[in-house]
């Protein structure tokens, strides 16, 4: 899995730390870190929560280009 740079950029644009985003979506900071590093695939429920917290759509943050 590749890194989720879109999510990291969206978080940075909102001036949020991983911890703040984690608290906003009720998960641990480790989970947010692993999602951004591409080491964990979140459930659709968590994806939606992250999108809401970052004011982005699912496509903005979790779309993957076909290889």
């Amino acid at each position: 899995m590749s890194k989720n740079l879109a999510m990291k950029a969206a978080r940075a644009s909102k001036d949020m730390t991983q911890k703040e985003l984690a608290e906003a979506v009720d998960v641990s900071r480790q989970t947010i870190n692993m999602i951004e590093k591409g080491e964990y695939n979140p459930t659709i429920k968590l994806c939606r929560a992250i999108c809401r917290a970052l004011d982005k759509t699912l496509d903005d943050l979790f779309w993957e280009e076909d290889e």
Partner: protein
Amino acid sequence: MKKLDEMKRLKLLKIEEKGFYLMFYGLVFVIVVQAFLNDFKDIQEVILPMVLLVIVFVYFIIVCFKEGIWSYQDVNQKKSIVVSILVGIVGAFIFGYKLYLLNRLHVEYLLMIFLIVTILMYLILIGVNRIYVKRVERLEDGDEE
């Protein structure tokens, strides 16, 4: 035949999880029953399964702690007290049975065993909870990269 898709992988994980707990607690039950049936005389008969249990338990604890995991639910003092009392009761029952076999069963001994096991268990749980909380704090405050 296709390899497992993500839904089936999750189902298999749940099956393995239930299987693990069945095996673990089943082994604990078998060891206790065997010990009772032998009147706690031949410890050699249960020593190997006990060693295996301890190894699995230690592995579980170490790896869970490394990942900042301890329990599905919140860790709190009330739960620690309840668990300690339950373990105290089990401990008093097991030792009480041994005392009964030796014709030395007195209520005072039972009470003493209950108190000692309960307090010991409570101290262990408090210690473990503290280590867990510190580990989680370290993971949560760690580097973002």
